[in-house]
Protein backbone atom coordinates (compact mmCIF):
# COMPACT_ATOMS: atom_id res chain seq x y z
CA UNK A 1 0.00 0.00 0.00
CA UNK A 2 1.20 3.48 -0.85
CA UNK A 3 -0.40 6.73 0.26
CA UNK A 4 1.18 9.50 -1.75
CA UNK A 5 1.18 12.73 0.24
CA UNK A 6 3.89 14.60 -1.63
CA UNK A 7 1.87 16.36 -4.31
CA UNK A 8 3.70 19.64 -3.78
CA UNK A 9 6.79 17.83 -5.09
CA UNK A 10 4.98 16.37 -8.05
CA UNK A 11 1.63 14.84 -8.97
CA UNK A 12 0.38 11.83 -10.82
CA UNK A 13 -0.24 12.43 -14.53
CA UNK A 14 -3.99 12.62 -15.08
CA UNK A 15 -5.67 10.31 -17.53
CA UNK A 16 -6.93 13.30 -19.49
CA UNK A 17 -3.37 14.58 -19.84
CA UNK A 18 -2.02 11.19 -20.84
CA UNK A 19 -4.71 10.65 -23.46
CA UNK A 20 -4.10 14.11 -24.88
CA UNK A 21 -0.37 13.43 -25.09
CA UNK A 22 -0.34 9.99 -26.69
CA UNK A 23 -1.00 11.11 -30.28
CA UNK A 24 1.94 13.50 -30.04
CA UNK A 25 4.23 10.78 -28.77
CA UNK A 26 3.16 8.47 -31.59
CA UNK A 27 1.61 9.41 -34.94
CA UNK A 28 1.61 13.20 -34.63
CA UNK A 29 5.31 13.63 -34.25
CA UNK A 30 5.58 16.69 -36.45
CA UNK A 31 7.60 19.82 -35.78
CA UNK A 32 5.22 22.80 -35.55
CA UNK A 33 7.67 24.89 -37.55
CA UNK A 34 7.40 22.55 -40.58
CA UNK A 35 5.28 23.66 -43.51
CA UNK A 36 3.95 20.23 -44.39
CA UNK A 37 0.73 18.82 -43.09
CA UNK A 38 2.38 16.64 -40.44
CA UNK A 39 4.06 19.72 -38.98
CA UNK A 40 0.95 21.81 -39.29
CA UNK A 41 -1.07 19.31 -37.28
CA UNK A 42 1.41 19.80 -34.48
CA UNK A 43 1.20 23.55 -34.91
CA UNK A 44 -2.57 23.44 -34.62
CA UNK A 45 -2.25 21.48 -31.38
CA UNK A 46 0.21 24.06 -30.09
CA UNK A 47 -2.17 26.89 -30.91
CA UNK A 48 -5.07 25.08 -29.27
CA UNK A 49 -3.01 24.36 -26.15
CA UNK A 50 -1.98 28.01 -25.91
CA UNK A 51 -5.61 29.10 -26.18
CA UNK A 52 -6.58 26.57 -23.57
CA UNK A 53 -3.90 27.57 -21.04
CA UNK A 54 -4.65 31.24 -21.64
CA UNK A 55 -8.36 30.56 -21.13
CA UNK A 56 -7.69 28.72 -17.88
CA UNK A 57 -5.82 31.76 -16.55
CA UNK A 58 -7.98 34.55 -17.96
CA UNK A 59 -5.16 35.60 -20.29
CA UNK A 60 -4.82 36.16 -24.03
CA UNK A 61 -3.08 33.37 -25.99
CA UNK A 62 -0.24 35.65 -27.08
CA UNK A 63 0.48 36.38 -23.43
CA UNK A 64 1.46 32.73 -22.82
CA UNK A 65 5.01 31.51 -23.43
CA UNK A 66 5.68 27.82 -22.94
CA UNK A 67 8.82 26.94 -21.03
CA UNK A 68 10.52 23.84 -19.67
CA UNK A 69 8.85 24.37 -16.30
CA UNK A 70 8.28 26.70 -13.39
CA UNK A 71 11.96 27.36 -12.75
CA UNK A 72 12.60 28.53 -16.29
CA UNK A 73 9.49 30.72 -16.18
CA UNK A 74 10.69 32.31 -12.92
CA UNK A 75 14.16 32.87 -14.36
CA UNK A 76 12.79 34.42 -17.54
CA UNK A 77 10.34 36.70 -15.75
CA UNK A 78 12.97 38.04 -13.36
CA UNK A 79 15.69 38.44 -15.98
CA UNK A 80 13.21 40.25 -18.22
CA UNK A 81 12.22 42.73 -15.53
CA UNK A 82 15.87 43.20 -14.55
CA UNK A 83 16.86 43.97 -18.15
CA UNK A 84 13.97 46.40 -18.61
CA UNK A 85 14.83 48.07 -15.31
CA UNK A 86 18.50 48.42 -16.14
CA UNK A 87 17.63 50.39 -19.29
CA UNK A 88 16.02 53.02 -17.06
CA UNK A 89 18.74 52.83 -14.42
CA UNK A 90 16.44 50.93 -12.06
CA UNK A 91 18.27 48.06 -10.45
CA UNK A 92 16.38 47.30 -7.24
CA UNK A 93 14.14 44.26 -6.80
CA UNK A 94 11.75 43.43 -3.96
CA UNK A 95 10.98 39.83 -3.06
CA UNK A 96 10.51 37.72 0.06
CA UNK A 97 12.76 35.53 2.18
CA UNK A 98 10.70 32.40 1.55
CA UNK A 99 10.54 32.29 -2.24
CA UNK A 100 11.41 29.17 -4.17
CA UNK A 101 15.10 28.81 -5.01
CA UNK A 102 14.27 29.37 -8.69
CA UNK A 103 13.54 32.94 -7.63
CA UNK A 104 16.08 33.36 -4.82
CA UNK A 105 19.02 32.02 -6.79
CA UNK A 106 18.14 34.16 -9.80
CA UNK A 107 18.07 37.17 -7.50
CA UNK A 108 21.45 36.15 -6.05
CA UNK A 109 22.85 36.09 -9.55
CA UNK A 110 21.49 39.57 -10.22
CA UNK A 111 22.90 40.82 -6.93
CA UNK A 112 26.35 39.75 -8.11
CA UNK A 113 25.71 41.75 -11.27
CA UNK A 114 25.11 44.90 -9.27
CA UNK A 115 21.38 44.79 -8.56
CA UNK A 116 20.10 45.51 -5.08
CA UNK A 117 17.73 42.98 -3.64
CA UNK A 118 15.33 43.53 -0.74
CA UNK A 119 13.93 40.31 0.71
CA UNK A 120 10.89 41.03 2.84
CA UNK A 121 10.62 39.32 6.21
CA UNK A 122 7.83 36.82 6.44
CA UNK A 123 5.49 37.02 9.41
CA UNK A 124 5.38 34.05 11.79
CA UNK A 125 2.13 32.90 10.15
CA UNK A 126 3.84 32.68 6.77
CA UNK A 127 2.39 35.85 5.24
CA UNK A 128 3.77 39.05 3.79
CA UNK A 129 1.61 42.15 3.52
CA UNK A 130 0.98 44.69 0.76
CA UNK A 131 2.10 47.35 3.26
CA UNK A 132 5.52 45.70 3.51
CA UNK A 133 5.77 45.76 -0.27
CA UNK A 134 4.70 49.41 -0.44
CA UNK A 135 7.34 50.37 2.13
CA UNK A 136 10.08 48.47 0.32
CA UNK A 137 9.47 49.94 -3.13
CA UNK A 138 11.92 52.71 -4.03
CA UNK A 139 12.39 55.10 -6.94
CA UNK A 140 14.76 52.61 -8.54
CA UNK A 141 12.66 49.46 -8.01
CA UNK A 142 12.10 47.58 -11.26
CA UNK A 143 10.35 44.45 -9.99
CA UNK A 144 8.36 42.99 -7.13
CA UNK A 145 8.21 39.20 -7.14
CA UNK A 146 6.17 37.41 -4.47
CA UNK A 147 4.96 33.84 -4.68
CA UNK A 148 1.22 33.19 -4.85
CA UNK A 149 1.42 30.22 -2.48
CA UNK A 150 4.42 28.89 -0.61
CA UNK A 151 5.60 25.43 -1.62
CA UNK A 152 6.45 24.27 1.90
CA UNK A 153 3.92 25.80 4.23
CA UNK A 154 1.17 26.46 1.70
CA UNK A 155 0.35 30.01 2.74
CA UNK A 156 -1.52 32.05 0.12
CA UNK A 157 -0.22 35.58 -0.27
CA UNK A 158 -2.34 38.70 -0.94
CA UNK A 159 -1.14 38.93 -4.54
CA UNK A 160 -4.06 41.01 -5.78
CA UNK A 161 -3.34 43.68 -3.17
CA UNK A 162 0.40 43.48 -3.77
CA UNK A 163 -0.15 43.85 -7.52
CA UNK A 164 -2.33 46.90 -6.87
CA UNK A 165 0.50 48.50 -4.88
CA UNK A 166 2.89 47.76 -7.73
CA UNK A 167 0.55 49.24 -10.32
CA UNK A 168 0.17 52.40 -8.29
CA UNK A 169 3.93 52.71 -7.99
CA UNK A 170 4.48 51.70 -11.62
CA UNK A 171 6.65 48.71 -10.78
CA UNK A 172 6.41 45.36 -12.57
CA UNK A 173 4.84 42.59 -10.51
CA UNK A 174 5.66 38.91 -11.00
CA UNK A 175 4.30 35.98 -9.05
CA UNK A 176 5.54 32.42 -8.87
CA UNK A 177 2.17 30.65 -8.94
CA UNK A 178 3.62 27.16 -9.37
CA UNK A 179 1.88 25.81 -6.26
CA UNK A 180 -1.34 27.76 -6.81
CA UNK A 181 -2.40 27.21 -10.42
CA UNK A 182 -4.86 24.36 -10.62
CA UNK A 183 -5.25 24.36 -6.81
CA UNK A 184 -6.96 27.68 -6.11
CA UNK A 185 -8.60 30.19 -8.47
CA UNK A 186 -5.92 32.04 -10.42
CA UNK A 187 -6.99 34.69 -12.92
CA UNK A 188 -4.21 36.96 -14.12
CA UNK A 189 -6.50 39.88 -14.92
CA UNK A 190 -8.23 39.63 -11.56
CA UNK A 191 -4.89 39.41 -9.75
CA UNK A 192 -3.54 42.24 -11.85
CA UNK A 193 -0.02 40.82 -12.07
CA UNK A 194 2.29 41.52 -14.99
CA UNK A 195 3.93 38.12 -15.07
CA UNK A 196 3.08 34.73 -13.61
CA UNK A 197 4.90 31.39 -13.64
CA UNK A 198 3.35 27.94 -13.59
CA UNK A 199 4.48 24.35 -13.89
CA UNK A 200 2.60 21.46 -15.52
CA UNK A 201 3.47 18.65 -13.16
CA UNK A 202 2.06 20.36 -10.09
CA UNK A 203 -1.52 19.88 -11.31
CA UNK A 204 -1.42 16.39 -12.81
CA UNK A 205 0.29 17.45 -16.02
CA UNK A 206 3.61 16.09 -17.26
CA UNK A 207 7.06 17.10 -16.02
CA UNK A 208 9.39 19.26 -18.11
CA UNK A 209 6.82 21.80 -19.18
CA UNK A 210 5.54 25.07 -17.76
CA UNK A 211 4.43 28.47 -18.87
CA UNK A 212 5.07 32.13 -18.29
CA UNK A 213 2.21 34.58 -18.52
CA UNK A 214 3.55 37.95 -19.58
CA UNK A 215 1.09 40.81 -19.94
CA UNK A 216 0.82 42.35 -23.41
CA UNK A 217 3.11 45.30 -23.72
CA UNK A 218 6.00 43.85 -21.73
CA UNK A 219 8.89 42.79 -23.92
CA UNK A 220 10.14 39.40 -22.75
CA UNK A 221 13.87 38.69 -22.97
CA UNK A 222 14.77 35.18 -24.05
CA UNK A 223 17.00 32.94 -21.97
CA UNK A 224 17.56 30.50 -24.80
CA UNK A 225 18.68 31.82 -28.16
CA UNK A 226 18.01 30.02 -31.41
CA UNK A 227 14.98 29.61 -33.63
CA UNK A 228 11.89 31.77 -33.65
CA UNK A 229 9.70 29.47 -31.57
CA UNK A 230 7.42 31.14 -29.01
CA UNK A 231 7.59 34.39 -31.02
CA UNK A 232 11.34 34.41 -30.62
CA UNK A 233 11.15 34.42 -26.84
CA UNK A 234 12.04 30.79 -26.22
CA UNK A 235 14.05 28.97 -28.84
CA UNK A 236 13.96 25.21 -29.29
CA UNK A 237 11.48 22.86 -30.90
CA UNK A 238 8.38 22.85 -28.77
CA UNK A 239 7.64 20.02 -26.34
CA UNK A 240 4.31 19.42 -28.03
CA UNK A 241 3.24 16.35 -26.06
CA UNK A 242 4.15 18.10 -22.81
CA UNK A 243 2.39 21.31 -23.74
CA UNK A 244 -0.76 19.50 -24.87
CA UNK A 245 -0.73 17.37 -21.72
CA UNK A 246 -0.29 20.39 -19.49
CA UNK A 247 -3.15 22.20 -21.17
CA UNK A 248 -5.44 19.19 -20.74
CA UNK A 249 -4.48 18.78 -17.08
CA UNK A 250 -5.02 22.46 -16.39
CA UNK A 251 -8.41 22.48 -18.10
CA UNK A 252 -9.50 19.54 -15.99
CA UNK A 253 -8.13 21.03 -12.76
CA UNK A 254 -9.87 24.34 -13.38
CA UNK A 255 -13.13 22.65 -14.33
CA UNK A 256 -13.15 20.64 -11.08
CA UNK A 257 -11.56 23.31 -8.94
CA UNK A 258 -14.41 24.02 -6.51
CA UNK A 259 -15.14 20.31 -5.96
CA UNK A 260 -11.49 19.41 -5.52
CA UNK A 261 -10.85 22.26 -3.15
CA UNK A 262 -13.77 21.23 -0.96
CA UNK A 263 -12.64 17.58 -0.92
CA UNK A 264 -9.06 18.42 -0.13
CA UNK A 265 -9.87 20.95 2.54
CA UNK A 266 -11.89 18.36 4.41
CA UNK A 267 -9.03 15.88 4.40
CA UNK A 268 -6.46 18.59 5.11
CA UNK A 269 -8.42 19.80 8.12
CA UNK A 270 -8.68 16.24 9.45
CA UNK A 271 -4.90 15.92 9.15
CA UNK A 272 -4.26 19.28 10.80
CA UNK A 273 -6.54 18.40 13.70
CA UNK A 274 -5.24 14.85 14.09
CA UNK A 275 -1.58 15.79 14.02
CA UNK A 276 -2.27 18.74 16.29
CA UNK A 277 -3.06 16.20 19.00
CA UNK A 278 0.62 15.30 19.12
CA UNK A 279 2.11 17.14 22.08
CA UNK A 280 4.78 19.72 21.38
CA UNK A 281 3.95 20.05 17.71
CA UNK A 282 3.32 23.25 15.83
CA UNK A 283 1.52 23.92 12.56
CA UNK A 284 3.61 25.91 10.12
CA UNK A 285 1.77 28.52 8.11
CA UNK A 286 -1.52 30.30 8.63
CA UNK A 287 -4.44 28.00 9.38
CA UNK A 288 -6.90 29.77 7.07
CA UNK A 289 -4.82 31.39 4.31
CA UNK A 290 -3.46 28.10 3.08
CA UNK A 291 -3.60 25.81 0.08
CA UNK A 292 -6.36 23.20 0.31
CA UNK A 293 -3.79 20.41 0.10
CA UNK A 294 -1.01 21.57 2.42
CA UNK A 295 -0.22 20.39 5.94
CA UNK A 296 3.11 21.24 7.54
CA UNK A 297 4.06 20.50 11.14
CA UNK A 298 7.17 20.64 13.28
CA UNK A 299 7.54 18.00 15.97
CA UNK A 300 9.91 18.99 18.74
CA UNK A 301 12.78 16.69 19.74
CA UNK A 302 13.11 14.69 16.53
CA UNK A 303 14.54 15.04 13.04
CA UNK A 304 12.64 15.06 9.77
CA UNK A 305 14.53 12.59 7.62
CA UNK A 306 14.06 9.78 10.09
CA UNK A 307 10.34 10.62 10.21
CA UNK A 308 10.16 10.30 6.42
CA UNK A 309 12.03 6.99 6.33
CA UNK A 310 9.77 5.42 8.95
CA UNK A 311 6.65 6.79 7.26
CA UNK A 312 7.89 5.37 3.96
CA UNK A 313 8.12 1.97 5.68
CA UNK A 314 4.44 2.38 6.51
CA UNK A 315 3.64 3.29 2.91
CA UNK A 316 3.28 7.04 3.45
CA UNK A 317 5.22 9.31 1.07
CA UNK A 318 5.86 12.76 2.52
CA UNK A 319 8.61 15.36 2.68
CA UNK A 320 10.50 17.44 5.22
CA UNK A 321 12.46 20.65 5.46
CA UNK A 322 15.20 19.14 7.61
CA UNK A 323 18.83 19.76 6.72
CA UNK A 324 19.34 16.06 6.08
CA UNK A 325 16.75 16.10 3.33
CA UNK A 326 18.04 19.32 1.82
CA UNK A 327 21.61 18.07 1.59
CA UNK A 328 22.93 21.09 3.48
CA UNK A 329 23.60 21.86 7.11
CA UNK A 330 20.69 24.24 7.39
CA UNK A 331 17.06 23.31 7.57
CA UNK A 332 14.49 24.82 5.21
CA UNK A 333 14.92 28.54 4.52
CA UNK A 334 11.13 28.80 4.61
CA UNK A 335 10.87 27.54 8.19
CA UNK A 336 13.77 29.75 9.24
CA UNK A 337 12.06 32.70 7.50
CA UNK A 338 8.92 32.27 9.62
CA UNK A 339 11.10 32.26 12.71
CA UNK A 340 11.27 28.57 13.57
CA UNK A 341 14.54 27.93 15.41
CA UNK A 342 16.90 25.40 13.81
CA UNK A 343 16.15 22.91 16.59
CA UNK A 344 12.53 22.50 15.61
CA UNK A 345 12.84 23.32 11.92
CA UNK A 346 14.81 20.05 11.61
CA UNK A 347 11.76 18.16 12.78
CA UNK A 348 9.35 19.23 10.07
CA UNK A 349 6.92 17.16 8.07
CA UNK A 350 5.06 18.31 4.96
CA UNK A 351 2.05 16.39 3.73
CA UNK A 352 0.65 17.64 0.43
CA UNK A 353 -2.47 15.86 -0.67
CA UNK A 354 -4.50 15.73 -3.83
CA UNK A 355 -8.22 15.29 -4.42
CA UNK A 356 -8.02 11.49 -4.39
CA UNK A 357 -7.04 11.25 -0.74
CA UNK A 358 -9.79 10.00 1.55
CA UNK A 359 -10.53 10.62 5.21
CA UNK A 360 -9.54 7.00 5.81
CA UNK A 361 -6.15 7.69 4.26
CA UNK A 362 -5.85 10.74 6.50
CA UNK A 363 -6.65 8.67 9.60
CA UNK A 364 -4.03 6.12 8.59
CA UNK A 365 -1.48 8.90 8.13
CA UNK A 366 -2.33 10.39 11.52
CA UNK A 367 -1.86 7.00 13.22
CA UNK A 368 1.40 6.42 11.36
CA UNK A 369 2.80 9.84 12.22
CA UNK A 370 1.84 9.45 15.87
CA UNK A 371 3.61 6.08 16.08
CA UNK A 372 6.67 7.43 14.27
CA UNK A 373 6.97 10.53 16.42
CA UNK A 374 6.63 8.45 19.60
CA UNK A 375 9.25 5.94 18.44
CA UNK A 376 11.80 8.60 17.51
CA UNK A 377 11.19 10.64 20.64
CA UNK A 378 11.79 7.46 22.61
CA UNK A 379 15.36 7.35 21.38
CA UNK A 380 16.05 11.10 21.29
CA UNK A 381 18.37 12.62 23.90
CA UNK A 382 16.84 16.00 23.09
CA UNK A 383 13.37 14.77 23.94
CA UNK A 384 14.68 13.25 27.17
CA UNK A 385 16.21 16.60 28.17
CA UNK A 386 12.99 18.42 27.32
CA UNK A 387 10.79 16.04 29.27
CA UNK A 388 13.13 15.98 32.28
CA UNK A 389 13.17 19.78 32.32
CA UNK A 390 16.88 20.06 31.52
CA UNK A 391 15.92 22.02 28.42
CA UNK A 392 12.90 24.20 27.85
CA UNK A 393 10.31 23.32 25.26
CA UNK A 394 10.08 25.75 22.36
CA UNK A 395 6.62 24.61 21.32
CA UNK A 396 3.55 24.41 23.52
Amino acid at each position, binding site marked *: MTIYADNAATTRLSDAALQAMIPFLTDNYGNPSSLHSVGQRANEALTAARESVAGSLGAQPREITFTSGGSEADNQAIMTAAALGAKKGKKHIVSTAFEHHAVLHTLNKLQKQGYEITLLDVHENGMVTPEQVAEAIREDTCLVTVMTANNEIGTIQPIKEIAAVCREKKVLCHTDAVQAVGHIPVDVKDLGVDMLSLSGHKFHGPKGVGALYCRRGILLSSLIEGGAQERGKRAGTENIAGIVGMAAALEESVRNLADNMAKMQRVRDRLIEGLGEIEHSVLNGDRAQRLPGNVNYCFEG*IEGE*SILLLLDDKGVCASSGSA*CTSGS*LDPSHVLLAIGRP*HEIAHGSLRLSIDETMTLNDADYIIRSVKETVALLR*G*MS*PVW*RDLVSGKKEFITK
Partner: protein
Amino acid sequence: MALYSEKVMDHFRNPRNVGVIEDADAVGEVGNAKCGDIMKIYLKIDNDVITDVKFETFGCGSAIASASMATELIKGKPLSEALELTNRAVVEALDGLPTHKIHCSVLAEEVIKAALKDYYDRNGIAYDPAMFPDDHDCENCELH
Protein backbone atom coordinates in the same frame (compact mmCIF):
# COMPACT_ATOMS: atom_id res chain seq x y z
CA MET B 1 19.80 2.89 -6.07
CA ALA B 2 18.26 3.44 -2.69
CA LEU B 3 19.58 6.25 -0.53
CA TYR B 4 20.94 3.84 2.07
CA SER B 5 22.40 0.33 2.12
CA GLU B 6 20.37 -2.54 3.54
CA LYS B 7 22.69 -2.53 6.55
CA VAL B 8 21.98 1.12 7.29
CA MET B 9 18.24 0.56 6.95
CA ASP B 10 18.43 -2.48 9.20
CA HIS B 11 20.24 -0.55 11.94
CA PHE B 12 17.87 2.40 11.48
CA ARG B 13 14.72 0.26 11.67
CA ASN B 14 16.03 -1.99 14.43
CA PRO B 15 18.63 0.03 16.28
CA ARG B 16 20.77 -2.05 18.66
CA ASN B 17 21.39 -0.93 22.23
CA VAL B 18 18.96 1.98 22.33
CA GLY B 19 18.38 3.44 25.76
CA VAL B 20 19.98 4.82 28.85
CA ILE B 21 22.22 3.34 31.56
CA GLU B 22 21.27 5.14 34.76
CA ASP B 23 24.44 4.16 36.63
CA ALA B 24 26.77 4.48 33.68
CA ASP B 25 30.51 4.63 34.31
CA ALA B 26 30.91 7.03 31.43
CA VAL B 27 28.67 9.25 29.31
CA GLY B 28 29.49 11.04 26.07
CA GLU B 29 27.43 13.51 24.06
CA VAL B 30 28.31 15.22 20.78
CA GLY B 31 26.61 17.31 18.13
CA ASN B 32 23.91 19.89 18.61
CA ALA B 33 20.27 20.25 17.76
CA LYS B 34 21.05 23.28 15.63
CA CYS B 35 23.00 21.11 13.18
CA GLY B 36 20.35 18.45 13.36
CA ASP B 37 22.33 15.61 14.97
CA ILE B 38 22.99 14.72 18.59
CA MET B 39 24.40 11.45 19.84
CA LYS B 40 24.62 10.38 23.44
CA ILE B 41 26.25 7.20 24.64
CA TYR B 42 26.35 5.45 28.04
CA LEU B 43 29.03 2.91 28.99
CA LYS B 44 29.44 0.35 31.75
CA ILE B 45 33.11 -0.41 32.16
CA ASP B 46 34.62 -3.26 34.11
CA ASN B 47 38.35 -3.93 34.24
CA ASP B 48 38.94 -1.68 31.24
CA VAL B 49 36.37 -3.60 29.21
CA ILE B 50 33.10 -2.13 27.93
CA THR B 51 30.57 -4.52 29.40
CA ASP B 52 27.44 -2.64 28.37
CA VAL B 53 26.57 0.26 26.09
CA LYS B 54 23.40 2.18 25.29
CA PHE B 55 22.77 5.13 23.01
CA GLU B 56 20.26 7.82 22.17
CA THR B 57 20.22 9.81 18.93
CA PHE B 58 18.42 12.86 17.61
CA GLY B 59 19.07 12.83 13.90
CA CYS B 60 18.53 11.35 10.50
CA GLY B 61 18.44 7.71 9.52
CA SER B 62 22.17 7.43 9.04
CA ALA B 63 22.86 9.12 12.40
CA ILE B 64 20.72 6.53 14.18
CA ALA B 65 22.28 3.69 12.18
CA SER B 66 25.84 4.96 12.76
CA ALA B 67 25.31 5.17 16.52
CA SER B 68 23.73 1.73 16.58
CA MET B 69 26.58 0.20 14.61
CA ALA B 70 29.18 1.95 16.76
CA THR B 71 27.68 0.44 19.92
CA GLU B 72 27.88 -3.00 18.35
CA LEU B 73 31.52 -2.46 17.43
CA ILE B 74 32.63 -1.53 20.95
CA LYS B 75 30.43 -3.74 23.10
CA GLY B 76 32.58 -6.25 25.02
CA LYS B 77 35.76 -4.61 23.75
CA PRO B 78 38.66 -3.27 25.86
CA LEU B 79 38.88 0.52 26.10
CA SER B 80 42.08 0.52 24.06
CA GLU B 81 40.20 -0.99 21.13
CA ALA B 82 37.22 1.33 21.47
CA LEU B 83 39.61 4.27 21.39
CA GLU B 84 40.88 3.14 18.02
CA LEU B 85 37.47 2.90 16.42
CA THR B 86 37.42 5.17 13.38
CA ASN B 87 34.47 6.57 11.51
CA ARG B 88 35.75 4.66 8.49
CA ALA B 89 35.23 1.41 10.38
CA VAL B 90 31.64 2.46 11.11
CA VAL B 91 31.04 3.34 7.46
CA GLU B 92 32.51 0.04 6.28
CA ALA B 93 30.46 -1.95 8.76
CA LEU B 94 27.34 -0.21 7.42
CA ASP B 95 28.29 -1.10 3.82
CA GLY B 96 28.83 2.56 3.08
CA LEU B 97 27.10 5.90 3.62
CA PRO B 98 26.25 8.61 1.09
CA THR B 99 28.99 11.27 0.95
CA HIS B 100 26.86 13.95 2.59
CA LYS B 101 26.11 11.56 5.46
CA ILE B 102 29.71 10.78 6.37
CA HIS B 103 29.45 13.30 9.19
CA CYS B 104 27.09 10.90 10.97
CA SER B 105 29.87 8.33 11.24
CA VAL B 106 32.21 11.08 12.45
CA LEU B 107 29.78 11.81 15.27
CA ALA B 108 29.68 8.11 16.14
CA GLU B 109 33.46 8.01 16.47
CA GLU B 110 33.48 11.23 18.45
CA VAL B 111 30.78 10.21 20.86
CA ILE B 112 32.75 7.13 21.87
CA LYS B 113 35.86 9.22 22.39
CA ALA B 114 33.82 11.72 24.42
CA ALA B 115 32.59 8.92 26.68
CA LEU B 116 36.09 7.51 27.14
CA LYS B 117 37.40 10.97 28.00
CA ASP B 118 34.62 11.25 30.55
CA TYR B 119 35.71 7.91 32.03
CA TYR B 120 39.35 9.01 32.30
CA ASP B 121 38.32 12.33 33.84
CA ARG B 122 36.02 10.69 36.38
CA ASN B 123 38.70 8.23 37.45
CA GLY B 124 41.68 10.56 37.35
CA ILE B 125 43.39 8.56 34.65
CA ALA B 126 46.06 10.49 32.79
CA TYR B 127 45.76 10.74 28.99
CA ASP B 128 47.17 12.65 26.08
CA PRO B 129 44.70 15.53 25.39
CA ALA B 130 45.60 15.30 21.70
CA MET B 131 43.60 12.06 21.59
CA PHE B 132 40.44 14.07 22.21
CA PRO B 133 40.13 16.99 19.85
CA ASP B 134 37.87 19.84 20.93
CA ASP B 135 34.35 20.53 19.89
CA HIS B 136 32.95 18.96 16.81
CA ASP B 137 33.08 21.19 13.77
CA CYS B 138 30.22 20.45 11.41
CA GLU B 139 32.12 21.90 8.47
CA ASN B 140 34.94 19.43 8.90
CA CYS B 141 33.21 16.11 8.68
CA GLU B 142 35.30 13.88 6.50
CA LEU B 143 36.26 10.28 6.26
CA HIS B 144 39.41 9.57 8.26
